[in-house]
Every structure is written in structure tokens, then in C-alpha cells.
């Protein structure tokens, strides 16, 4: 089965006055239709930049320096703005943490949906309106509120409208960047359930970007953990949580409070993330790694394929073809 999205050795750098920030520095990634990948990382990991670069939304002074992005088999790496606009919103959609990024404050939400639909599809206004009300119903917005303006809705409802806009044209892939981070825990749960439902009914692929590993575990089929611009572990979700092979994965999971455990011993990872302008030569996690060895300091670790769909970027597993 052809992959929905394949990313090969992608590098995205920001050219700032202080230096060149290597935000995404050699990322290999793939996902299939209908899959949900949880892209997890802390601040500075590059996860948002990765999400934006798929849609070529990386703002200057950022730039895609090298690598390939293949969507549905097409190499979209070199596509210009004009071509990207054809797929943005219609084949690949993106939703963000701040709902007001996507919502026009001066447009009634139904209007906005209708416009979005008619920009990409040649159908009548009446038909588009019908589609719009179906969408609003799907995301849980009561029909009597379709004539309201964004500011009249709560945060959770605005995110629902954002989803409606994003899936209006039945895209193959939806990218959600810290989509629920500004929401309270109960609303977050509701939105997550909604996304799961819609993902299935629309048969969409979903890249769920978040710093919250617990949250991601609720929705992801596979987890891609990023650190300092690189993916360090890429595994099916249940395997990730039970194995967590990369030392960073282990450290991260040990620092997350688990409400189901009593007497949990919470720990932290000593040190700080590296400077992305001058990243270290070898493994970027080496300075904070409890298992680091000399080779880790000198050379960049390879992306080891443990199993068909399980990859770890670590010398500890180099040469090993199983999980022992």
C-alpha cells in the first residue's frame, strides 16, 4: 500500500541574525492512509516546524533546505505557492492551538464554511450551505448558532468550527498543531473524541502534534518522538509505551505524572536541550543521557530499524534486529 505521506531526510533551517537555527535536521517519516501519528516533542524539538513544512507554511526566515516530501506519491517538495494552494485545505488541512488563527472574526461561521467550500468546489451557494450545516452538525455545533460570529463562541466550540473548516473538503490528511493545548481537560477530552470519530468517518490521516505524551496516547496509532530537530523514536503506540527504547523516551515517560499510579516516583531529565544553532556533533541527547558512551559523543547515531515499523535513533540498538 502506497504511503499517504513520506518525508525523506528533511532539513528546515531558520536564518536568523544570531545564527542559523537548525529546527528540523534530518527527519525521516512516513504514514499510511487513515493512520494517526502522534508527533511529540518539547519546546524546540522542531515538531511545529515539521508540521508547517508539510504544507509549506514555514515563514521566512525559515526555509526548507533539503530533503523530500511525498504526498500520495507526488513529490511536493518543489511545488510553488500556486500549486500548494490547490492542496491546502482540500487535500491537506491544518488546525492550530489558537482557533482565531483560522476563523475570520468578521464572518459568520456558516458564511465562512460556505466560502471555503466554494473556493475549491464549483457548486451552488445553496448546496454549499447544505454541506455547511451538515458539517456543523457533525462537529457538534447546534444549527441555531450557524449565524453567529466566532467571538460569540467558547474556546472549545471555536476549535470545533476550526475542525469543520478543515474537513469541509474531505482532505486526506489533517495536521493538528497543539490543537487542544489551550482547552480545559474536559473540553479537551470532548474534542479528542470528536476527532477520533471524524477521522474514522472521513478516513483521514491525522498528524497530532503535541508536547503532552499522555494526551497523544489517547489518540495515536503510532508515536514519533522528536528531540532537537530529529525523530529519535518512531513506533506503534502501545509498543512505544511499553518499550520506550530511546533514553529520551524513557526519561520523558518517567517525568510525566500518571494519575493512575499511587506512589509514583517522578523524575526529570537533567540538563537542557542543545543549542540548535550549534548542535553537538554526535548524538544530540548525549549530554543528558544516562547511557551515553564515547561513540555517542563523536558520531551521529543511525536510525536503526528494530522491526518493520519500529525505528530508534540510538547506538544502543545498532546491530540489533529485535527488541531485546
Amino acid at each position, binding site marked *: 500500500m502506497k504511503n499517504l505521506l513520506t518525508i525523506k531526510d528533511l532539513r528546515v533551517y531558520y536564518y536568523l541574525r544570531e545564527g542559523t537555527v537548525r529546527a528540523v535536521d534530518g527527519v525521516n517519516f512516513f504514514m499510511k492512509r487513515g493512520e494517526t501519528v502522534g508527533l511529540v516533542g518539547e519546546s524546540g524539538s522542531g515538531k511545529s516546524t515539521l508540521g508547517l513544512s508539510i504544507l509549506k507554511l514555514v515563514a521566512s526566515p525559515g526555509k526548507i533546505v533539503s530533503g523530500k516530501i511525498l504526498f500520495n506519491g507526488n513529490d511536493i517538495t518543489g511545488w510553488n505557492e500556486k500549486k500548494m494552494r490547490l492542496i491546502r485545505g482540500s487535500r491537506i488541512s491544518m488546525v492550530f492551538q489558537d482557533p482565531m488563527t483560522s476563523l475570520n472574526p468578521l464572518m459568520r461561521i456558516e458564511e465562512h464554511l460556505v466560502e471555503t467550500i466554494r473556493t475549491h468546489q464549483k457548486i451552488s451557494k445553496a448546496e454549499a450551505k447544505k454541506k455547511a450545516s451538515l458539517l456543523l452538525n457533525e462537529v457538534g455545533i447546534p444549527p441555531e448558532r450557524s449565524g453567529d460570529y466566532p467571538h460569540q463562541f*467558547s474556546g472549545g466550540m471555536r476549535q470545533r468550527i476550526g475542525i469543520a473548516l478543515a474537513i469541509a473538503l474531505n482532505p486526506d490528511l489533517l495536521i493538528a498543531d497543539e490543537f487542544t493545548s489551550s482547552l480545559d481537560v474536559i473540553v479537551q477530552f470532548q474534542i479528542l473524541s470528536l476527532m477520533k470519530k471524524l477521522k474514522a468517518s472521513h478516513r483521514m490521516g491525522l498528524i497530532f502534534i503535541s508536547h503532552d505524551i499522555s494526551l497523544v496516547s489517547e489518540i495515536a496509532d503510532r508515536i514519533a518522538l522528536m528531540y532537537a530537530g530529529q525523530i529519535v523514536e518512531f513506533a506503534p503506540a*502501545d509498543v512505544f509505551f511499553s518499550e520506550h527504547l530511546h533514553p529520551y523516551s524513557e526519561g520523558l515517560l518517567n517525568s510525566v505524572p500518571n494519575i493512575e499510579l499511587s506512589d509514583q516516583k517522578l523524575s526529570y531529565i537533567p540538563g*537542557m536541550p542543545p543549542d540548535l544553532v550549534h548542535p553537538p556533533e554526535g548524538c544530540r541527547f548525549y549530554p543528558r543521557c544516562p547511557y551515553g558512551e564515547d561513540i555517542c559523543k563523536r558520531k551521529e547515531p543511525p536510525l536503526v530499524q528494530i522491526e518493520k515499523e519500529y525505528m530508534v535513533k540510538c547506538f544502543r540498538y545498532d546491530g540489533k534486529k529485535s527488541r531485546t
Partner: protein
Amino acid sequence: MKKSIWLSVSGMMERKVELKVVNLKKYFPVQKSFLERLLSGKIEYVQAVNRISFEVRKGEVFGLVGESGCGKTTTGRLITRLIEPTEGKIFFKGEDVTFIQGERLREFRKYVQIIFQNPYASLNPRMRIGEATGHPLEIHGIATGEKKKKMVLEMLEKVGLEPAKKFYDLYPFELSGGQRQRVAIARAMILNPELVVADEPISMIDVSLRAKILELMLMLKEERNLTYVFITHDLAVAKYISDWIAIMYLGEIVEIGRKEQIFSTPYHPYTKALLSAIPVPDPKREKKDIKLKGEVPSSINPPSGCRFHTRCNFTKDKCQNLKPSLKMVDKDHYVACHLY
């Protein structure tokens, strides 16, 4: 209407009550434009905190938990007297500090301090770390010059900012978020307070570094026999660090008790919903989904009676008309709900 002053006899026997809050209320008038005021006439209020009462004993970590808009941050501001209550009383070590001013208020600040949520905004960008940390000493006339510098360097080392001499001269923008938060902690601790309100102290810190801050806070607590009021929206963190927990909803306390009690046997429907919604890093776990209707209503026009009744799956007629008061349901466990 019953007065809901809440006393815990058994609790008071064990440890001294450090902080007591009685029927605390804070209503903020809604800002309206001239025209709006002209047209509507009446003044509306954001009922941020609506008659809450609780006690915090010396040496304990009191977790104040709730979603945004529940009034927990306002409560924190009230306890530290950064704002004045609309009604109610605040007692610190038995003394009524509700409306103290001037010198008395300044004295009070030596005992009760606060750590804020946002380490990027709580430090004066134009003040060097050493100066900022030592400023409380200067203000209260405790130390100046060399003596002050020595105390500051000691404190910076204590919070893990080493070498202290280096950090002394830096500006906040040269520090990471986690480091800045440690400066904020140093600044709060340098006066040797007895009660510290921590308002979401780790929510803006990277996940892998949060436990470091918590560890620091717990270490300081042990060393100095501190009492914390720990405000957070994250129940998992509250579970980790608190001894007692109060769950707030729309300005009121709906459930309060010893941590173990709250998590093993939650009573209030809101608490149960909250617990079921919290993500757990375990994809294999069976999830019990409590479908809660709607969203948090506005605190300007809150629901009558029990404020939670509009979303509750077990609501009865009584709930709409009569506000439930906190009742004891177990040892060290109180709930405000008509179900019990």
C-alpha cells in the same frame, strides 16, 4: 440559609491551622463602555469566588484544583492579599488579615509569598537576577550591601543556579524558563516565608524539567517546614504533590478532602468527570467516559442553586433551587452535592 463555616475537629487536633478562609467572596464589576452603562443601568459582576471556606494546616501542601475560570487563581491572589475580598474573612495564624493595610500588610508579606505561573513575565526584564532576588531584603530593611549579596548568593545556590556569582549579574532574558522560575522561587523564599502560594508554577515549564522544580519546592518545604497552597488545573500533578485537595467549579468548592480520599472515592459528579477526562500515558487502558453535557457557564450569570446542575447527569429539582453546602461524607472528605 445555613452558614457554611467548615471546621475539621479531627484535623485541628493533629496540626495547627496556618491559614483559614471563611465565606470568601470576590466579585469583579464588569467593565462596560459608557453607552452600555447608559443603556442597561445595572452593574454586572464576574462572580469569581463565591463564598468558599477551607483550612490549611502547617506543613501541608493544599492543592487547589479546577479548570480555567473556577476562581482558583483569584483565591490565590486573595490569600496573598494582592487583592481585597468583596466579603468574607482570611485568617493567618489566627490573626484576621482580611483588610490589613500599610505596615501590617508589609509585615504580612514576610510570612506569605507567591510564585507565579509565567516565569517569562514575573521578573522585571531590567533587573539583574541578583538585584531582583535581593530586592525583598532591601524593601524590608533586612539586609543591604555585602550582607545582602551574601544572602542572595546563598539562595541562588540553594535553588540550583550555580555558579551563583555568574547568575547574579545576568538579566532574565539570558535565562531559560526553568531557570527563571527558580529565580522566582528564590525571590519568594529569601524572606523565609511560612506560607507560599504557588500558582501553576510548572505549567509553563517543559515536561521533562517539571519534576526538577517540584523537587526543589518539596526540598524547601522539608527544610523550612513550609506550607504550600498549590494551584493547578492538572489533577495528576495535584495528586503527586498535595496532601489535601479542594476541587473548585465556577467559584465554589465542590469537593475537598485528603488526597487519597479524593482519588480513591470521588463523590462529586464533577470530580468524577474530571478524573475520567484526564489522559493517561497508557494506550491499552480501558477508558470510562463520563459524557458531560455542554461547557462551563459564564461566571457573570452563573446557574442558580448548585452551579453544576446544568451539566450534571444526576440533577434533581432540588439542585436548581438550593445550593448544597459542604457535608462530611467520609473521614477527611467533604462534598457539596444534594446526592449525599
